[in-house]
């Protein structure tokens, strides 16, 4: 790509010229920067703006993002960071805004995007992204980021975005006080017998579900497919190489129909946090949700303590697998401040950056070499499992499959929760797979 090289050179020389004009002030700071810390040699020369686009506006995530900004500003004090976060709809508003900007060729300098197909099937395919393979190699990220995860953010031999955090999708949460002496279930049969026993004890709807938006049911589907088919089957299926009318998918749907018999009947009006609330209040025993549920429990008043008041196991049947929901940052072509954006990616990829960000966000670092001491006990055990487990991308959160497929699955799952029609749903899923996964 000769044009980008010239552009980069242009930016560099423009920066040098700017420092020369300002009475060599830039050079002075460059020397200071070199003397103070082992920062990249060019750090002090970066000027102008850095516009970062995300949907991190909620408590915790907003604070994590601020920590990353602070770390960036410490290294590049002359760069003004423009926080272009768009609130609403778990990122759906932000994605709509981003689409408009990308199509108008006015990209931000870098934007938050879920690892994998959410980026690759849209903006990479549209030729609007710049590969960041050289930055990846320069930072030696092969050593600190698992290969499974690198594969998820790669396509056509290039890496397209830098993972900053990892959430886990296949988790079963429970209130330890309600669970009492019972041991948490590890298989589907154990789960149903446990649900039955709690029902007999008078907890009418022992499995809490909040399905507003339907993606929570799509998570039940992908966790179930993983449990019944294993990671290789899962990967093939969501790449469009398997069939959703296969018996393992139908078994999963049948199991889901069974589980839906134990959930609160008002689930369509609740979101996941209200479902976690039912568990916290002891009105339900279990809820199946990503590990952002942990943040809900620990932020309650009075707070619930991990492994004392609430606990978590892998979604029954998926132990040894880690369904990853990963936030990453990429580099759009024609980023207005490209050099600043590359520096941002380096901060995002850094050990310190991820150590700052993840405890606030409630996720674990994408790097495996971040010290575990600052994390809570659940995150610590997740960090251990992340190193050894098979990592599979989540479809419900756009990593395994393009956004249009994920959105269509949400819709079908919303229907399924009402009809519980196994074979009709399997056919509908297969039809969408043929429409969206094969191209």
């Amino acid at each position: 790509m000769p044009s980008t090289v010239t552009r980069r050179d242009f930016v560099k020389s423009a920066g040098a010229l700017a420092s020369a004009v300002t009475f060599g002030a830039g050079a002075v700071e460059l020397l200071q920067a070199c003397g103070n810390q082992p920062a990249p040699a060019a750090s002090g020369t970066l000027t102008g703006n850095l516009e970062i686009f995300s949907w991190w506006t909620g408590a915790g995530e907003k604070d994590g993002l601020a920590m990353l900004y602070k770390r960036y500003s410490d290294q590049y004090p002359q760069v003004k960071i423009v926080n272009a976060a768009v609130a609403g709809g778990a990122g759906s508003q932000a994605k709509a805004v981003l689409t408009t900007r990308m199509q108008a060729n006015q990209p931000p300098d870098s934007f938050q995007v879920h690892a994998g197909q959410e980026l690759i099937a849209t903006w990479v395919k549209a030729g609007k992204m710049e590969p960041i393979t050289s930055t990846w190699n320069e930072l030696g990220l092969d050593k600190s980021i698992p290969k499974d995860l690198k594969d998820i953010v790669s396509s056509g031999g290039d890496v397209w975005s830098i993972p900053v955090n990892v959430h886990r999708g296949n988790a079963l949460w429970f209130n330890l006080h309600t669970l009492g002496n019972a041991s948490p279930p590890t298989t589907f049969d154990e789960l149903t017998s446990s649900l039955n026993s709690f029902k007999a004890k008078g907890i009418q709807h022992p499995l809490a579900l909040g399905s507003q938006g339907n993606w929570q049911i799509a998570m039940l589907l992908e966790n179930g497919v993983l449990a019944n088919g294993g990671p290789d089957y899962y990967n093939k299926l969501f790449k469009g190489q398997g069939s959703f009318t296969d018996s393992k998918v139908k078994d999963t749907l049948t199991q889901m129909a069974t589980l839906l018999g134990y959930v609160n009947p008002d689930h369509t009006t609740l979101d996941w946090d209200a479902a976690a609330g039912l568990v916290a209040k002891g009105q339900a025993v279990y809820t199946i949700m990503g590990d952002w549920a942990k943040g809900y429990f620990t932020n309650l008043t009075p707070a619930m303590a991990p492994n004392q008041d609430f606990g978590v196991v892998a979604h029954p049947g998926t132990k040894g697998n880690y369904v990853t929901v990963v936030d990453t940052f990429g580099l759009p072509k024609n980023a207005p401040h490209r050099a600043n954006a590359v520096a941002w990616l380096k901060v995002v990829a850094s050990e310190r950056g991820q150590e700052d960000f993840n405890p606030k966000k409630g996720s674990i670092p994408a790097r495996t070499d971040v010290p575990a001491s600052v994390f809570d006990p659940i995150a610590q055990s997740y960090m251990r499992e992340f190193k050894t487990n098979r990592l599979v991308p989540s479809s419900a959160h756009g990593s395994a499959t393009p956004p249009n497929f994920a959105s269509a699955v949400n819709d079908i799952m919303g229907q399924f929760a009402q009809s519980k029609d196994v074979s009709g749903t399997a056919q509908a899923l297969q039809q969408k797979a043929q429409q969206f996964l094969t191209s």
Partner: protein
Amino acid sequence: MALAQTEEILRERPRKGRSRVVFSLDRLTPFLMIAPSVVLVAVFVYGFIGYSGFSSLTRWNSVVTDYTFVGLKQYRLLFQDVRFQADVRNTVVFTISFLLLCVLLGFGAALLVDQKLPGSRLFQNVYLFPLALSFVVTGVVWRWLWNPTFGIDALLRALHVDPARAGLGVITDTRTALFAVVIAATWQMSGFCMAMFLAGLRGIPEELREAARVDGAGAVQAFRYVILPQLNPVVLAAIIILGHISLKIFDLVYVMTFGGPGHATDMPGLYMFIAIFQQNLYAYGAAIATMLLLLVAVLVVPYLIWNLREEAER
């Protein structure tokens, strides 16, 4: 008038003024005055309607623009789509019940207020208040009111009115959810209907009522043959205004139910938004938009024709 006079004066002038007549400032002024809005409307309304219609005939179903012409393929897919079928059903049911409720309630309230009973002034204002809210606010409020755990259902349970329906809400049942939305929309818009009917009632000259009384018409007869016919234009206006709001409804369902449970409250406007902004199906979304336009046209075009005819008769 002034224009005609000027023209006359100009015409009486010697011949060389002929070209001046055509380009005279007086003749051009009206055109210049409306030109900006004509241009803006032409580009931003009709231009974009045309662009949507054109997009719906292409296969532009990803973030990369693709204007390959595929004819009516998107429409064929659309009519086979169970979700769109549900949308059309929902729109028709929603629009009819919403219009009926609004017109009947609004008319009833207007009749009551028109009696100038004590407190009617207060009622009139309170009843009109929800109109000042946006559908988003209404949606959030009614979502919680219908919530089985916190809302009306919980209240009924607490009062032991209907304990058999414990935990089962109007808004969670696919058969009744649409009516939960209808009631919320009616709550907001029936006050508007009342205001329109009230204006209509107050606009009927007292002489007409008096004449009816003199001719020996009873209250019912006077109402049926004198008052009601006078209100016809009001009913029509209310149906047109509320009808196009209800056909295009988006914000209320977006915040209240997001189309759920299942497709029970899904609407074409919502589906169009999801198709375009979540699934990046631009051509498909444009096809939904075009169908929506046709749906509104079915309602509005007869009104426009009727209106033009009335004007011509006058």
